[in-house]
């Protein structure tokens, strides 16, 4: 086998000859573009990448990235990715999944992948709708959402992907959005460098079946008021000129908005964000309501041994405790000779 090389990889090296078949204007194009820019910068040989997906619009992703790729079955990308990592821990394994694939049919696998901390980068394309089947409500669709299968409005309360991930003991939880450009790129790089399951929710516009679902958050005109870019060790600030902030209300255990946050007398009240604290991540993930900003960036990151590392550790630990030859195993217990 040739020695792996990473020299001079470019975006072009990660572009396949397959024409993407997403609808014109789909947010997936922007994510694909950013991914193709990020991958060459990671210092990983191209042949060591594997992209795995389930079923859904975003799950076509592997066909368009010039690495090893598997487009599998609905909901099951994570177990298959786990098998890949367990079989060869040298590989950089990425999963492209959607709100239906990861939170509905594959919800069980997400929960267990996160708690095991398998070293997989999970990109959850959340468009809050079923696109590939042409417009039915998904587990992240808002209550009352009118779709083809909920003509009177959905009666299912939505799941918050980040709260779910934190609850499962995820070691890396982040959020960005399709057209975020550098923010998405930086978030993906941090995910790539994380050892363990890196869970990234990417808010993604489905311009055909759920157009504008995230407009209020991503609209350039209001982005400063509606997005809270979190940064480890820094006070939570947002708004024009970072003039607004958040403080902890110790009575309600929630985050309240502080106006005039740039005023020195308010600055000390601001909540200083610690990404290693899952309670901080939980508070941020639950931020919602009129006029409340949506957190973006890495909400949580801690170091914990990966599943694969623990497998390895046990294997070394067992070196002197288990049979080391099959013949010795055959002869274990009671045997007898027939002459």
């Amino acid at each position, binding site marked *: 086998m040739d020695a792996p090389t990473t020299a001079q990889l470019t975006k072009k090296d990660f572009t396949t000859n397959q024409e993407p078949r997403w609808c014109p204007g789909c947010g997936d194009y922007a994510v694909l573009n950013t991914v193709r820019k990020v991958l060459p910068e990671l210092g990983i040989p191209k042949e060591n990448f594997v992209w795995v*997906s389930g079923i859904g619009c975003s799950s076509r992703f592997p066909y368009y990235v010039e690495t090893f790729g598997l487009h599998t*079955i609905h909901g099951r990308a994570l177990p298959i990715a786990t098998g890949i990592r367990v079989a060869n821990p040298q*590989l950089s394994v990425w999963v492209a999944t959607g709100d239906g694939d990861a939170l509905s049919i594959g919800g069980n696998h997400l929960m267990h992948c996160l708690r095991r901390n398998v070293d997989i980068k999970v990109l959850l394309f959340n468009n809050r709708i079923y696109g590939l089947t042409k417009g039915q409500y998904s587990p992240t669709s808002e209550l009352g959402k009118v779709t083809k299968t909920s003509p009177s409005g959905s009666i299912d309360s939505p799941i918050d992907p980040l709260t779910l991930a934190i609850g499962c003991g995820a070691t890396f939880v982040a959020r960005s959005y399709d057209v975020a450009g550098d923010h998405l790129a930086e978030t993906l790089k941090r995910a790539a460098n994380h050892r363990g399951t890196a869970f990234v929710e990417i808010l993604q516009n489905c311009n055909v079946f759920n157009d504008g679902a995230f407009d209020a958050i991503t609209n350039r005109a209001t982005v400063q008021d509606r997005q809270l870019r979190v940064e480890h060790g820094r006070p939570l600030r947002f708004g024009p000129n970072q003039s607004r902030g958040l403080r902890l209300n110790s009575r309600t255990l929630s985050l309240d908005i502080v106006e005039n946050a740039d005023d020195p007398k308010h600055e000390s009240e601001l909540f200083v964000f610690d990404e290693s604290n899952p309670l901080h991540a939980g508070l941020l993930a639950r931020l919602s309501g009129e006029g409340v900003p949506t957190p973006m960036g890495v909400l949580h990151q801690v170091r914990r041994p990966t599943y694969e590392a623990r497998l390895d550790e*046990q*294997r070394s630990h067992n070196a002197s405790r288990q*049979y080391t030859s099959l013949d010795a*195993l055959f002869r274990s217990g009671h045997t007898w000779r027939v002459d």
Partner: protein
Amino acid sequence: MTAEPVPQQTAPKSQTIKSAVVRFAGDSGDGVQILGDQFTSSTASEGNDLATLPDYPAEIRAPAGTVAGVSGFQIQFGSENVHTSGDVPDVLVAMNPAALRRNISELRKGGLLVLNAGAFSAANIDKAGYAANPLEDGSLSEFNVMAIDITRLTNLAVEPAGLGTKDAARCKNFWTLGLTYWLYSRPLDSTLAWIGSKFSGRPDLALANQLALKAGNAYGETSELFHHRYHVPAAKLPPGDYRSITGNTALAWGLIAAAQRSSRQLVLGSYPITPATELLQELSKHSQLGVTTVQAEDEIAAVGVAIGASYTGSIGVTTTSGPGLALKMEAIGLAVTMEVPLVIVDVQRGGPSTGLPTKTEQADLLQAIFGRPGESPVCVLAASTPGNCFDVAIEAARIATKYMTPVIVLSDSTLANGAEPWKLPVLDDLPDLRCHQEPPPKDDFKPYRRDPATLARAWVTPGQKGYEYRIGGLEKDALTGNVSYDPMNHERMTELREAKILGISADIPDAKVESGPASGQLLVVGWGSSYGPIREAVERLNARSIAVSHLHLMHLNPFPRNLGELLTRFEKILVPELNRGQLSQLLAARYRVEVRSYNKMQGRPLTVSEIEEQILAQLED
């Protein structure tokens, strides 16, 4: 309560017999399975051929003393070939009234019935559902009854160990084992040593169980209750080193051997399910032998892990039972279309749904062959004896890797838990399974270019530079593997996938008549665990100069090439199965032959005598 029988003043006669069938039965907590295992081990040491069948309830501890909570263990051992655990016990050891009630109808008339009279309290008799004490109402008059207060005698025997009442009572099984050893003229040494090591951390328990074993043995010698004791001479097995092995252990070890002979890692994805759980338990102990096990969150994740590992170049395996196989089917279809190796083990149990989790059945054959969406052919194999599970595991890995295909291995509850003597194989003598060692030429690499001989695509794995390719569950172009909706390409791919599986028939041994004449009036065709009872029935009839033959199939999809021709050499074909006629349907449809089915759906193995009866009836018909 009856008094113990009055001792007689004559010494028991020692009688040499060819074979014996003994069944132990008691409450789930009575230690019957340990009793059975130890008896098996000592039987093996004596050089007898043997076959065993444990029978335990689905409930871990059903209410004590009830019929639902009865656990059993049957062994047949002999000085000639033993193929089954025996139709009818010669000796029944029943540790309580419920065990008696559950098993008495199967004891041979005139057979020896050993009872723990100490457990026949009014409450226990009532719990077992008896209206009156069976020891007193004459209902056992057809049997040779030895009602012994084993509880009291055990308590007396273990007194020096100073145990509490509860622990002392638990030694009953070893007292009973000691008595049974006396009955079959067995030495105690190996069991005494086993007890010593088993309870090495509790010297008091070790001492008590050893005392109980010796006391039970001495009781046989001194009580003079028994008119006979027996001796079963050693069987003439081929020379070699032997051990006793269950089907589940043999299958697990076969998988390890296959991975080693492939020079690849074994990755098992599995989720616990009766009766396949021991496969996961056994394999999880062997990381030093190249095994990685992942206890997945569910059956689907388990097969997913195996597929991911296979795609990455390991021997990916998943183990389950019928309900789990159903859950895995969509993923197995993915492996069919991705064309990656995959070994799926289905240890069958009674169905449908949860069915009879601890009982046996052979009703997943059609599920294995057909139970996936679309035209989705896979190779299907079945093991025939506990020891044969080892060979079938290796054959499954051979076919899976050589042909880049899923292979389903069918075992069942009888094989999984049953044991027989097994000649230890020499690893270097096992088939060399290395294949796809060299990557294909890098220039113009096409993921779905096939080896013309096997129709298998190359096993190119992530990490191999210059081969980056993308495939999935969507239909693929027959050469490039790119997504293709071309109608003629889909038809061609469907035919290629089928031809690849059918082509395996050129790479497996021809079907061969196992016993009986090579042509004639009646051929009995079997698969799976019915091997033992069919073989024994056919041999018995052959010994009476009744011409009947036995064919047993390991390869169920595809069938051996000569099978159709072989079937035409017989006037009649009889297929006994623990299902409603699944192999029968396949043979009739494929070869246009008239097949006579014998079907049994009782959660129990076929018996020799019922197959004999069927054969005789078919010959007369």
